């Protein structure tokens, strides 16, 4: 009974905090209340996720809310990123407040939408009903739209318009896919309330109409793929990421994309079992993943704006995760591990880009040079995260990419292997060419060296240390969690997904 109530609280606490933020009268109070609300949600969420990973799925509300290993793992990362980003947001906006760039109205807008977005994303992870999951994704689009233009400028409006329109259309396609999944259950005699429940569909997956299911998966992949930033539906992403305030970019890149990709992962076992385990859906995923890696690699070479560069890195890494899921086996495990690594690394990169942007007054990499001298802490954060992003050992991203390569070898997918290495190679060279001047280039004389506070130092050191440690040593509990989560995706066939976690690789 206790855990069921906790699932509801995970949605209600951030929603209530968001509503409260609209009523407060000072910017500082808003930032403090926001951090407190997010903090409580993080504590609750981690507790429930831990319970689920140890002792199996939890459900509530007549099975409409459901948390299994896959969603618990993703929820855990979401909350980690959200906690870090909220702490950073309070640093970032306090700096803006000192410079007089932030009004009370903007702070209220930010505080309420920020917490609202958290509520919508947790709704995606805890809902068992695929229709409600869709509602959550669409709600994140609409709530985060205005976060892009907290500061109203021509560019930010343009980015917001593209984001809302492209993502709404994309997500509408995903709804069409959801309806087609619903249509594929015709003739099974399922009752109305349970027809869209993931657990029901998973149990009956082998009996679904394969034709309908294939059409559905194409719509779902294109729809949720748009929101996840898979090429060629990624056009909104660089604009939105570059125009949003840094904490919002960190959240977009660090976890909103993964939330959409999670929805695709949810459907993978159903589609695989429904189409007779032929690997049809997995091949589609592999194709989209490789295309994203290659497209991103081409654009990374010619970027001048730091945040756009990071945005294309997101396209690349979402591609890598999709490729991993598409390869299956060890690849699924590595893809989920990569999700954690990429989220940590990318949030740090956007944190650094945001603070350095505030100090230098630009995100143009031709002017943003020599950051190591001007702001040692954030300069190191940026350089370290860029190195990790391009896959330098011994950071954890190197390990997960290596595992994906191994999965490709195991499967004999030579073509995928070649394209992946090609893309990663281009990204390595291109991004390193940007990273070195960023760190040690000639600084413009107008920039004064700035010291970072304790919290800021912690925000840089913590993710970097985590990435280093995870690169060299994987803790036992994490491995168990990853295996349990990967098994939710991998285990096709009629076996029910309700089995407890902790299955061996």
């Amino acid at each position, binding site marked *: 009974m206790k855990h069921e109530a906790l699932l509801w609280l995970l949605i209600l606490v951030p929603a209530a905090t968001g509503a409260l933020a609209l009523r407060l009268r000072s910017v500082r109070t808003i930032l403090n209340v926001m951090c407190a609300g997010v903090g409580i949600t993080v504590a609750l969420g981690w507790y429930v996720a831990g319970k689920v990973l140890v002792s199996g799925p939890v459900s509530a509300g007549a099975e409409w809310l459901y948390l299994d290993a896959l969603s618990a793992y993703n929820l855990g990362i979401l909350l980690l990123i959200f906690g870090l980003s909220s702490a950073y947001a309070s640093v970032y906006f306090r700096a803006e407040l000192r410079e007089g760039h932030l009004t009370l109205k903007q702070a209220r807008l930010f505080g309420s939408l920020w917490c609202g977005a958290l509520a919508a994303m947790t709704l995606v992870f805890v809902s068992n*009903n695929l*229709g*409600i999951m*869709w*509602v959550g994704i*669409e*709600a994140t689009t*609409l709530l985060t*739209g*205005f976060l892009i*233009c907290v500061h*109203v*400028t*021509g*560019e930010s*409006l*343009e*980015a*917001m*318009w*593209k984001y*809302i*329109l492209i993502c*709404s*259309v994309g997500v*509408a396609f995903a*709804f*069409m896919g959801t*309806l*087609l999944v*619903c*249509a594929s259950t*015709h003739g099974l005699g*399922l*009752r*109305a*309330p349970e*027809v*869209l429940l993931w657990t029901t569909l998973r149990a009956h997956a082998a009996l679904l*109409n394969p*034709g*309908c299911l294939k*059409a559905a998966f194409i719509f779902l992949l294109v729809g949720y793929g748009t929101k996840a930033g898979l090429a060629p539906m990624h056009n909104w992403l*660089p*604009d939105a990421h*570059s*125009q949003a305030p840094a904490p919002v970019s960190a959240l977009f890149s660090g976890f909103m994309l993964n939330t959409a990709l999670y929805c695709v992962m949810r459907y993978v076992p159903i589609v695989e079992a429904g189409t007779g385990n032929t690997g049809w859906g997995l091949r589609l995923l592999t194709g989209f993943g490789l295309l994203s890696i290659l497209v991103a690699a081409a*654009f990374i070479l*010619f*970027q001048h704006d730091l945040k*756009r560069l990071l945005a294309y890195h997101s396209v690349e890494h979402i591609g890598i995760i999709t490729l991993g899921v598409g390869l299956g086996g060890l690849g699924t495990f590595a893809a989920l591990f990569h999700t954690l690594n990429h989220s940590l690394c990318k949030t740090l990169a956007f944190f650094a880009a945001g603070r350095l942007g505030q100090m230098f007054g630009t995100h143009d990499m031709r002017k943003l040079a020599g950051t190591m001298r001007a702001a040692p802490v954030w300069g190191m954060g940026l350089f370290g995260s860029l190195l990790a992003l391009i896959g330098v050992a011994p950071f954890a991203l190197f390990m997960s990419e290596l595992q994906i390569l191994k999965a490709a070898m195991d499967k004999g997918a030579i073509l995928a292997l070649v394209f992946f290495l090609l893309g990663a190679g281009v990204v390595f060279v291109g991004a390193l060419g940007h990273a070195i001047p960023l760190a040690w280039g000639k600084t413009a004389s107008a920039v004064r060296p700035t010291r970072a506070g304790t919290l800021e130092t912690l925000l840089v050191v913590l993710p970097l240390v985590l990435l280093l440690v995870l690169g060299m040593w994987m803790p036992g509990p994490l491995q168990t969690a990853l295996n349990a989560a990967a098994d939710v995706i991998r285990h096709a066939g009629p076996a029910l997904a309700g089995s407890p976690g902790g299955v061996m690789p």
Partner: protein
Amino acid sequence: MGTNLILVLVVLTNLKLLASSRLGASIRVVAAQGMVLGLLPVLAHVHELSLHFAAMALGTIALKGVVFPWLLFRALREAEVTREVEPYVGYISSILVGLMALAASFWLGGRLPVTTTGVSSLLVPSALFSILAGLFLIVARKRAVNQVLGFLVLENGIYTFGVGVVAETPFLVELGVLLDAFVAVFVMGIAVYHINREFDHIETDRLDRLKG
């Protein structure tokens, strides 16, 4: 019989939208389409009429027929621009594209393995046609308001499909979907207003500063 009439009306309103040169007229056409579609669940399931379908019909008519047009007219009034549609693709070509899309919808509708449980054989093709027409309106018209209309037509197509093919969606899900559509149009309305204030126009072809 009634359902067939509605579906034919949906197809005709889509064609009318493709040829329409005035923004105000387009908003009214989309409103009419929304109202007609509101009746679809009642007529399609006339033998098993329940509170569920009645509530859904009322909600849809109120939202798509009254609230959305009101929001869009407000955005248009505040934008105070000329009321031309300003297409990238001319009206005659648009109609031709529309007719091709209609043919494609009938071909595809015949191949899609879904059962419409005795509603109407026109249902899947007209739903697909609305989706394609909506997409075309989004990419082929400059005005931000017109792109919102395209999105609504697309949404209407998916709604049509949902009513005919998946009668058993739970009420709560439908409510959520309707709410999302409402917020989407609301948000887009505000965006149109801001874009107008910032740029003194609502033509999306001049939203071109972000590239590469």
